[in-house]
Each structure stands twice: as structure tokens, then as C-alpha cells.
């Protein structure tokens, strides 16, 4: 969930709950207040009526007069009798309203009054229609105001949050695009919010530091490899000098050979590491027009005698593919894939090399490998324990593909390993 949504969601939820509660509460409370008012006014009316009736001495025939009042008055009904309640009793009742011509709700006060020693049953009523309309009107206003308030709050919050968090998202985007081996430092935008400025500063510092460490490390690998070349050269030259001595025993000769092979292996490792860091440092930028098929054929011709030693044949189906590329890198790429194929090919099987639809593929028969493709491409990963294998071959191929924008893929089916490079 996005930050803005979390914020908005909580606000929205709160507003909604408030709204849902406030509508009935406000409606009910307005109605309650009104109904209390009405009851009070009814009570007042009844008091006044009773007071007047008891004051009017000139009424000769009380019974008749009261009957007339009962008939004429819209909201006062009085009848002789004593069945009614002693205390004042309020109720809401529906009556046919002869004025409006429909049944309407009324509030009614029901009580017993005594006039001149005689008990009368008194009902005072008032229409509830007006009060209901009022309650409805007040309620609607309340609802509209609440809705407007909520909507406004949400809208403002949304816009404000968007503006406030903008620098944050900018920074995030820049961080996402940051690549340690490629990018320069991250350009961070000044914001007028302290926290974001602090964040940006911390991030700048972090990325800058990581980059420095990375560059140092890269430089270190390169320097270390360079510095190792001379001692290996001395080592090798001394071995050569030892070989010239005339009376070597067989064991001594074998040891010398092993030492020389080891020196060679060190030197090869070193050269491969250097190659990797050179590709990293983009020291192979010069491009020239190259016919890939010709280049592949050339490499195949060089490797054929080697493969032939193991009864491995090399079959080719090469479509012409003119490329604009760095020749050194392409040669390394082809050689490494070919070397790999020969190394891992089953004996007496053919290696198949094709160029088809801008894709260069090398296939060899062999058993399923214990490691998967992703691991295969890592440095110093190897299946073979052969001393001539440095474990850097595929790592170099991958690095070349990455730096030149080629696509490398691997497929294993029918006991055949296929490495493909799509140009």
C-alpha cells in the first residue's frame, strides 16, 4: 500500500464512521429537543385552558359550552368523564386532519381537569408535521455540511500529501535508477522540508561512499593483477633456467613441469581477471565492422585440431552476420564458448556451431550439470576440476554480453547444452 493511500484511508474511514454516526444522532437529538418543546407547549396550553375555563364565571351552562369548545376547537377536546389518567399523559397519535384531508401525526396531552367540582377528560393536541419538517431540514443541513467537510478534508489532504511527498518519490526514483558500476553520483533535488533534505544528504553520502569503495576495489583488483605479473614472470624465468641444468632426475623434471603449469595457471587467472576489469572499465570501446561468420570460422579452424584429439568434431552452419563491434571482445567471447564446449563435450560427439537470425549458438552433448545457469555465470564457478580451467570463462562471456548489450541464454535438452548469444 502506498504511503498516500494509508494516510487517506485512515482519514476516510474516520470521516465515514463519523458521518454514519452523526446523521442519526443529529436527527434524533433534534427531534427529541423539538418533541420536548412541543410537550412543554402542550402542557402550557392545557394549563392556560384550564385556568381560563375556571376563571370564566359567566359560563351558565358549562356542559354545553364545553361541548361547543370541543366541537369548534381544532386542538382542544374536552368531555365529561373521569376515566382518563390522573397525571398528564403524552402520546403521539394519528388522526384524520379535516383541514389537510389526510391522516397526520399529532402530539397529544391527555389529562383530567376539574371544573366547578366536575371532572372532565381533556385532550390537547398539536400537529407534528411542522416539527418533523424542521427536524428533516436541520438533519439535511447537517448531513450536507458533514459531507462537504469530509470531502474537502480528503481533497486537501490528498493534494497536500502529493506535494509534500514529491521530493521523496523523486529521490526514490533516482535511487532505483542508480547502478553502482555505471552511475555517477545521484543528483538529489533540494526540498523545503528538513526531513527530506536530511534523507537526501544521507543517501548522497551513502551512494558516494559505496561508489568510492567499489572503485577502490576495482582499482585494487586491477593493480593486484598487474603487480602479480612481474613475480610470476620471474618465477617462470627461474624455472626455465632450472630446466636447462643437464642432470635432472625424472622426479625433478616432473616437479618443474608441475610448477611451470601452476605458474601458467596463475598467469591465466590473472589475465582473465584483468580482462574482466578492463571490460568493466570500458577499455574496449573501439568498434569496427566485423563479419561474425568469418571470425567464428577462424576460431573454429584454430580449435579444430584440439577438438580432434578427443574425437570431437565441429560442425558449423554459419549465416553471414555483419556486426559493428569490438573485435577483441568478440574473439574472447567465441573462444571462451568454444573452449567450454570442447571441455564439457562428451567424447566422440560433434559440437554444433550456428549463426541464425542474429543468434550465435554453440551446442555440445554432455551430461546435465549440477549447477544452474545463474550460478554458472558467477566467477570461479566450475564443474571441471581441470587445472587449466580458471572458472572465469563464462563470467567473462557474461560481462562482455552485459557491456555490449548482447543477450546470453542457456538451454539444456536432449542431453545437449546450448549457449546462445543474441546480437
Amino acid at each position, binding site marked *: 500500500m502506498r504511503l498516500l493511500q494509508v494516510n487517506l484511508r485512515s482519514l476516510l474511514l474516520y470521516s465515514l464512521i463519523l458521518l454514519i454516526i452523526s446523521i442519526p444522532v443529529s436527527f434524533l437529538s433534534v427531534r427529541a429537543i423539538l418533541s420536548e418543546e412541543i410537550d412543554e407547549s402542550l402542557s402550557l396550553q392545557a394549563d392556560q385552558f384550564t385556568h381560563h375555563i375556571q376563571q370564566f364565571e359567566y359560563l351558565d351552562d358549562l356542559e354545553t359550552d364545553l361541548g361547543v369548545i370541543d366541537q369548534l376547537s381544532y386542538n382542544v377536546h374536552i368531555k365529561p368523564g373521569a376515566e382518563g389518567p390522573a397525571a398528564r399523559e403524552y402520546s403521539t397519535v394519528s388522526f384524520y386532519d379535516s383541514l389537510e384531508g389526510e391522516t397526520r401525526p399529532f402530539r397529544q396531552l391527555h389529562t383530567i381537569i376539574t371544573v366547578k367540582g366536575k371532572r372532565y377528560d381533556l385532550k390537547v393536541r398539536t400537529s407534528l408535521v411542522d416539527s418533523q419538517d424542521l427536524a428533516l431540514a436541520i438533519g439535511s443541513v447537517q448531513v450536507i455540511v458533514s459531507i462537504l467537510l469530509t470531502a474537502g478534508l480528503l481533497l486537501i489532504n490528498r493534494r497536500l500529501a502529493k506535494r509534500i511527498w514529491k521530493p521523496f518519490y523523486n529521490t526514490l526514483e533516482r535511487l532505483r535508477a542508480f547502478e553502482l558500476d555505471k552511475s555517477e553520483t545521484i543528483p538529489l533535488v533540494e526540498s523545503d522540508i528538513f526531513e527530506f533534505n536530511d534523507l537526501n544528504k544521507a543517501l548522497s553520502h551513502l551512494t558516494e561512499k559505496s561508489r568510492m569503495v567499489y572503485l577502490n576495489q576495482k582499482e585494487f583488483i586491477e593493480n593486484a593483477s*598487474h*603487480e602479480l*605479473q*612481474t613475480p*610470476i*614472470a*620471474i*618465477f*617462470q*624465468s*627461474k*624455472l*626455465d*633456467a632450472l*630446466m*636447462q641444468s643437464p642432470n*635432472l632426475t*625424472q622426479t625433478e*623434471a*616432473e616437479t*618443474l*613441469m608441475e610448477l*611451470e*603449469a601452476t*605458474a*601458467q595457471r596463475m*598467469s*591465466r587467472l590473472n*589475465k582473465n581477471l*584483468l580482462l574482466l576489469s*578492463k571490460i568493466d572499465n570500458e*577499455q*574496449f570501446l573501439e568498434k569496427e565492422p566485423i563479419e561474425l561468420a568469418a571470425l567464428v570460422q577462424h576460431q573454429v579452424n*584454430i*580449435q579444430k*585440431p*584440439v577438438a580432434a*584429439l*578427443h574425437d570431437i568434431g565441429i560442425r558449423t552452419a554459419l549465416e553471414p552476420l555483419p556486426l559493428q563491434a569490438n573485435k*577483441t571482445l568478440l574473439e574472447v567471447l567465441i*573462444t571462451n564458448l568454444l*573452449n567450454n564446449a*570442447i*571441455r564439457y563435450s562428451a567424447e566422440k560427439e560433434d559440437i554444433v556451431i550456428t549463426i541464425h537470425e542474429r543468434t550465435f549458438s554453440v551446442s555440445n552433448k554432455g551430461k546435465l550439470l549440477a549447477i544452474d545457469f545463474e550460478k554458472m555465470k558467477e566467477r570461479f564457478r566450475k564443474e571441471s576440476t*581441470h587445472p*587449466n*580451467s*580458471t572458472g572465469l*570463462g563464462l563470467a567473462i562471456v557474461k560481462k562482455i554480453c552485459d557491456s555490449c548489450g548482447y543477450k546470453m541464454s542457456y538451454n539444456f535438452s536432449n542431453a545437449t547444452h546450448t549457449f546462445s548469444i543474441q546480437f
Partner: protein
Amino acid sequence: MKILIIEDEKQLAKSIVTALRTEGYVCEAAYTAAEANEKIPMFDYDCILLDINLPDDNGLAILETIKSLNKTDGVIIITARNSVEDKVKGLNLGADDYLAKPFFMPELIARVSAVIRRKRFDGSNKIVFQEITIDLFGKSVTVNGQELDLTRMEYGLLVFLTANKNRVVSKNAIAEHLSGDNAELLDKFDFIYSHMKNLKRKLTDAGSEDYIKTVYGLGYKFSA
């Protein structure tokens, strides 16, 4: 034939001097650029081995000096920094060859002999060893005037061995020389063995003496 070795690593310089002396070259060593700059104007060398990374100066400056003196000395650049730019720069400045450290001594000797031959023999460039004659221009080999039919590998092998005559050349060095950067081979010794066997057979079939001696466990020695 006189060779100047400009190399600040004394141990390496000494080994190179010793190895080249067995091939009959007269060698001098300079351990600093200052020493080298003293020697170069005073003597004529057939070949100068030049390390680019010297403590007191860049080797390429020495190369410029050599060329500015109109010297015809052959120059082979030796460097631990195997960078394309250095190579291109060196060759553009007039170096004859370029060798990256570490290298096999037989490889260095073969390069030296190739540079010297190129400098000294214009027109007909031939190596003659007893009854064997190698024509480096025509890339052909004759024994007692009879031309041999050699493969590219066998021819390269023979030239390499003749440059290193009287020295034991290890199988590792031969494999690296023949396959260059592709030396990451399996069973490279089988590979050499088959080529060597064929070469020896072709030479002796043509009536040459067997000059290629197997040094057990190590490699081969070409000697009369």
C-alpha cells in the same frame, strides 16, 4: 649480436641475460631509465628489450629517444600492463614487438631472434641449421634442397625450436606458443606430441638427422 635488457626487476633481467647468452647473444642489462639513456647513444644494439614500467621514467620515453637518434635497433616492449593502448602506442612509436608479462623464456628468445632476423637480413630471410633451411618469407622448409610438406603447426614448431637451439624448451612453452591465447586446452601435451612426432618423421624422412631430442618429463631440445 648485442642485446640490451632494460628491466628494473633485477632477478628477471638476470634470468633473461642468462637465457639469451646460451643462444650466443651478447647481453647487457640496464636497471633504470637513466642507465639505459646512458648506454643507448653509445652503443649499437641488435635488439633492445624494454620494460615500460621503470621506476624513474616511462619506457615509452626511452623508445622515443631511440627513434630520435635514428637508431635501427630492434625494440621489443615488455610490460606487466597488458593494455591495448600501451601496445598500440608502443608499436606506433616504432617498437618491433610487444610481449606481456609473464612470458615463457623460449617465447622471448623466439621473438628476439625474429626481430634480429628482420632487422639484419633484408631480402632473403633464411635460417640455416646444418642441412635444414627455413625460408621465413616463403614459409617453406628444405632439407638438403628437398622441400618438406609441413602443416602450419609443424612449421611454427620448427621455427620456434631453431630459435631456442641448445636449450630445453618446455611443453608448456610450446603449447602456449602454438595456441597463443587459446592455450586453455585439455591435454595440451597430447596435442604437442602428435605435431612433434609428425615433424620429426617428416624431417628424418627427408634425410635430416634427428635434431629434436625429447627431454623426458620436460619437453624438447633442438641441438646438433
